[in-house]
């Protein structure tokens, strides 16, 4: 019995100790920034779901589980719940050439932009109603080796429309390198999707193109609002 008491005491001591150790202050620091097309200096458009991520690895822990920050549709990101510390930060699994990681100290409101090369640029985009159809024409500039898996025009009631989030779409499989001399054309038929998107209203249209690369996300042109 006596021995058991000691054990309990020991246990209590350990528990108590553990509690004290865990009494850290809450996260006070934040990291925000932008993904910028290194050439055009424009924000690099993203998806709100299953889009590019910012990987941050806090220093001083081993093993350490990386944290991933979501990049918003417009190419900005922000997390205001980080502990002040050194971190290795790197945009990954995106629609751009993965840049080298950088080590920064995150404290207060730290801002870190990344200049990146998008896999693809959608250029000379024109989206217009032609009869019953919505027709998109554009050129593709490819900035990395490989094939363009598919191009598509995506439609939704929500302005954050994209390949993963759409009620209607017209896609074309390419599986070939982008041809700089070709004007690509997609014809979207609103009739096919009127069960989800009744005619006579306005919707958001966004043209995207996906490289066939490891964990690649689609590249986009800016969203266009059209009445159909």
């Amino acid at each position, binding site marked *: 019995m006596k021995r058991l008491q000691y054990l309990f005491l020991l246990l209590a001591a350990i528990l108590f100790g553990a509690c004290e150790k865990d009494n850290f202050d809450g996260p006070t620091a934040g990291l925000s920034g932008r993904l910028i097309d290194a050439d055009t200096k424009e924000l690099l458009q993203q998806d709100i779901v*299953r889009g590019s991520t910012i990987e941050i690895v806090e220093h001083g822990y081993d*093993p350490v*589980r990386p944290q991933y920050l979501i990049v918003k549709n417009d190419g900005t990101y922000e997390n205001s719940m980080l502990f002040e510390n050194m971190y290795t930060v790197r945009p*990954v*699994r995106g629609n751009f050439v993965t840049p080298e990681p950088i080590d920064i100290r995150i404290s207060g409101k730290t801002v870190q932009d990344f200049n990146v090369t998008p896999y693809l640029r959608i250029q000379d985009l024109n989206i217009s109603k032609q009869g019953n159809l919505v027709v998109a024409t554009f050129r593709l500039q490819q900035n990395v080796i490989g094939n363009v898996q598919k191009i598509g025009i995506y439609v939704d009631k929500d302005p954050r429309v994209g*390949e*993963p989030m*759409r009620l209607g*779409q017209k896609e074309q499989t390419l599986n070939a390198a982008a041809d700089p001399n070709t004007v690509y054309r997609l014809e979207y038929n609103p*009739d*096919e999707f*009127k*069960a989800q998107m009744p005619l006579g209203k306005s919707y958001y249209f966004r043209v995207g193109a996906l490289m066939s690369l*490891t*964990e690649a996300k689609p590249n986009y042109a800016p969203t266009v609002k059209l009445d159909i």
Partner: protein
Amino acid sequence: MLFSCQGILDIKPTDKIPAEVLFGDPEGVKIYMANLYYQLPIEDFAYFRAGFNQNGGDPNNGGFSAAMLTEEAMHTEFGDFFGDGDFQWWDQGYKLIRDVNLLIDAIPALDILEEEKSALTGESNFIKAFAYFALAKRYGGVPLIKATQKYEGSAEPLKVPRSTEKETWDYVLELCDVAATNLGTAKGRRANKYTALALKSRAALHAASLAKFGSRATVSGDAVTQKLVGLEASAAAGYYAACIQASQAIITDGAYSLFRPNPATPAEAAENYRLLFQNPNDAPDEVILIKGYNLPGANLGHNYDIWYQPAQVANGWPHPGRMNPTLEMVDLYESYAAPGQSAPVVTTVDGNVTDYGGYDPSKNYLRFDTPNEIFKDKDARLWGTAILPGTTWKGTNIVIQAGYVKPDGQAVIRIKDQITVGANTYYTYGAPSTTMYSGFDTYGGNNTRTGFSFKKFMNQNSPIVPGWNQSTTDWAEFRYAEVLLNFAEAVVESGTGDATAAAKALNDIRRRAGHTVNIPLTADNVQRERRVELAFENKRFWDLIRRREYHTVFNNRVMHTLLPLQDLRALPATKYIFVRVQVPNSNPRTFELKAYYRSIPGIGANGLVQNPQY
């Protein structure tokens, strides 16, 4: 000895009975072996997202099965998809491996005949191979604990790092070979030589497919660079060859054959197919390994009958009808009129099968005399797998109707309503009360929302017992048809091996299903045949994984429903039309690349490299 009833004998060998005492007695070894079989990761009637043997404790998981994560079926209510914690088998896997290693250690010292030792060695290695196969297909490369670990005061030496995925698959196949070499050919409920070869056939095909199709879905991270996940394309040839070799060894020995291989009519073929799964014990020529469910009760019986039989036969059970085969699945089955291609259900005169826009009075619908005439000529296995609208099950006409078109051309669909025309009253769901139909009413989540209910594995002989774990239908884990399909796939995908024999394997299975026209051996034909023949046997899930098709097949994917409507414009004739629509109340689902591998639990403690994107 039947390993079915050994749940109650969940012996904890190392803390209750000293190993030498247990293994010193041949009966002790048998009991121990039974427990190992019980732990086998067999994806059967008790396999759900939470894991294996989900037939004790609280088995209420809504009846959400692995088939509902594929195009095979929808649940009546749930629209779930992959969760990070689903289908895990890590701690249990290493427990089984530890347990089987203890037995392997003990075998040399056992006081039994050499041939008995050989058989035990074979069985142990079969179990170990089965365990590592289950780990490899979930996690990729895993720590290979090839022999019993001894704790000598420090946990560090016991921490084994992950081997590469290649090394892990090679080890699985090596264990299969050891098992096949040591096992005899006697049939029973324990592993024999053919069981080991069938496992090898399945595992080698899995590995070969990963190697061949890995480039369809590449990911990044430490696990990739260290080759803990992923196989080189160059490894495919060797694995396909291993699959061909193992499959052919079973085929040429002739110990197994297809159950009732030459039916006279498609109707007979459909019934044969149903019988094969209602009681696999009646098909010892085809079934290579059975997992038995001999008695009702917790950890003994299972719950397929209560979850999945149509609402009309629920017999007081409050939650039937959860398995809803999709229109995609029904479309897939061939028509005897056009062999060698899937036969989507044509509902309109223009034949457009991609129009999911809903009922439109201006469209010209085909009219049918019965709610199932539209499926006439479809592969017998559709009739043996799904309960189709207006067919008989347990002496009851199963009513599956989504609504009607009123004489004025306006339709009432998926709304409880009735209309009197002349002397007769018509009901949207085909009958006046919830006990009299099985479709589309959302009442209780008991009625199919795809237009189809479920027949395969269902017990037709006795009424549902309205309680948990009352089903005793046995599970066929390996059957000859799968071996034939593995063989055909390995030949056609590798472009090596006996293509004539592979084509014969493919067409033998079709012949058993009532087909009379042979089709050529092509990759597409093999996959369609596989999906149809092995439907709902929890194979499609892994086919999508191993062929790296999941992310393509499930990219914003919605499933579809066939709405049977009575067309009252035809009165006094009784006529039905059908409308193809998206499954009601369903959302698109997308497979994320990371789900090709499960996350490894306990990384913080075991120090292993985590799989990508977890």
